[in-house]
């Protein structure tokens, strides 16, 4: 008993949500440390489309169990709950994990309530010690990291998005279809009347938790572009000062300041920004400000929580080099 770990494979129209692949990365390690089998549970309405999913053969699970029924097309929460509750009672898994997608965050709590199991949300790190599994997450406004356990089995959690990279397996998982018993209740109380696929995502600068900003101190457009690389590593958005926008180094939608975007991120990294009022009114509410500037007396250096007196392009190059080396 409790020999397997379930991970929710969220499918839609023949696509597997990348978050379902991300969560396999830490779960693979957990499964190995605790000597359990990691099983991806896929729910879908079309068998052929499911089996055609490209990532299926390279994902990190030991097995993939898929369940097919037309009612699963839009993964209605009540039906998904029933399926997982059935699987839990049949197989008594050690843990059931969902990605913190909207679907995961909607289904996991229903399953947990039915199983009277504890559920931890937005877990972004795991710890295995003496055969016990600990779940870590930032909490209470993200200034505190909490370490949690669950006193019930299965251990359940939703795993934070973008917290783990997708990794590929050496070995192909065992893929098999699960047929649920004859009398299984496939009904759902929810009726989808209409579905509109998502359009391209709008700019996320104003709601970004981490912003890297660049000013004239970066000296050139090429140097400025390095900010995008840094942003990718930090999972941040890029912004620029007015002069930088007018110099054509970055598009106007990314201008931070008066008559531009106002940002209130947890972390603001200012590269080569002097700190003119036109810019600072757009970011002075940032929780933690880091400034890199050759000029020790620049207003941004006084405003920052930490300042590095340094030529911005050199600092940025060194920073990128070190961050990439760590990976």
């Amino acid at each position, binding site marked *: 008993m409790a020999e397997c770990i379930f991970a929710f494979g969220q499918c839609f129209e023949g696509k597997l949500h990348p978050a379902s692949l991300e969560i396999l990365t830490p779960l693979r390690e957990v499964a190995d440390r605790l000597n359990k089998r990691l099983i991806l549970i896929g729910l879908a309405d079309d068998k052929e489309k499911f089996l055609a999913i490209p990532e299926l053969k390279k994902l990190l699970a030991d097995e993939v169990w898929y369940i097919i029924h037309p009612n699963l097309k*839009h993964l209605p929460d009540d039906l998904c709950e029933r399926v997982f509750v059935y699987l839990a009672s049949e197989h008594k898994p050690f843990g059931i994990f969902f990605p913190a997608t*909207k679907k995961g965050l909607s289904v*996991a709590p229903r399953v947990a309530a039915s199983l009277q199991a504890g*559920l931890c949300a937005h877990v972004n790190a795991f710890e295995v010690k003496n055969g016990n599994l600990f779940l870590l997450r930032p909490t209470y406004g993200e*200034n505190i990291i909490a370490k949690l356990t669950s006193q019930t089995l299965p251990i359940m959690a939703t795993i934070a998005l973008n917290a783990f990279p997708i990794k590929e397996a050496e070995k192909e998982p065992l893929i098999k279809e699960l047929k649920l018993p004859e009398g299984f209740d496939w009904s759902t109380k929810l009726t989808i*009347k209409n579905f*509109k696929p998502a359009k391209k995502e709008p700019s996320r600068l104003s709601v970004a938790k981490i912003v890297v900003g660049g000013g004239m101190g970066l000296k050139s457009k090429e140097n400025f572009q390095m900010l995008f690389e840094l942003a990718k590593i930090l999972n941040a958005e890029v912004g620029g000062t007015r002069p930088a926008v007018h110099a054509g180094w970055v598009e106007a939608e990314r201008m931070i300041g008066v008559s531009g975007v106002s940002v209130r991120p947890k972390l603001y990294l200012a590269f080569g920004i002097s700190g003119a009022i036109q810019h600072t009114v757009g970011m002075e509410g940032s929780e933690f400000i880091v400034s890199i500037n050759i000029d020790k007396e620049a207003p941004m250096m006084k405003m*920052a929580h930490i300042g590095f007196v340094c030529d911005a392009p050199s600092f940025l190059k060194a920073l990128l080099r070190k961050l990439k080396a760590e990976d």
Partner: protein
Amino acid sequence: MGRIVVCIKGVPKPGTVKVDEETHTLRRESAELILNPPDRPALEVALRLKDQANFEVIAISMGPPNMVPLLQKVYALGVDDIYLISDRAFAGSDTLATSRILARALSLLSPFDLVVMGARSIDGETGQVPPETASLLNLPSITYVKEIRFVDGKFIAIREDDFGEEEVEFPSPAVVSIVPEIDYVRPPSLKRLLSLKEITPKILTNAELNLDEASIGLSGSPTQVVDVFEKTFVSRGEIFEGEPDELAEKLIEVLKEKGFLA
């Protein structure tokens, strides 16, 4: 006349939170409480249904006695009745225990057509309570709802999904959670604000809810916090000088310390 129950939460004003060193849970009694911002759209959605189809709107909140002023402010927004669900035995509840308490309170307030909640709270940020409560009550849950339409006696939710936008028809009663983004929320009414002193919430304790103590509070919470690490803040204006390499190293160290880098 139908009934809508809105579950709201008082959360510590960001920056004023204190964590109990022993239990690692929030010391809610000592914190300055504000209305959980995502609950405001939830209240607005309920009040729009009241304007449109004359639903009775009741606001309930599980929390300590210092929630009363917040509930009064919610009354000023236009709800018909306010309830505080409060008992020492509820303290320290995780989302499952909380959902048990809310489910029991809701069953005392039934029949109702809709339970409306904000999608998440800004302190716990789990978003789990609406679907957990729904499951315990054996009701459908519809999450990430942007808009609720009430047409010909039927409810339709416009909701955000990971892959697009859904229009979902659902039967009542049901539990709905509302996304924090909304086009407009109404201000409080001056008439109600001027008469606020006379308004007190009805109180429900465990005497009325009659829940087994093993299922509520810390003892009823399967998830337990075993440790917390608080992030420390560097004071403003610390300046470092040196070579790009060593400075970059220092920045990486600071970012890791603060959890911005793994």
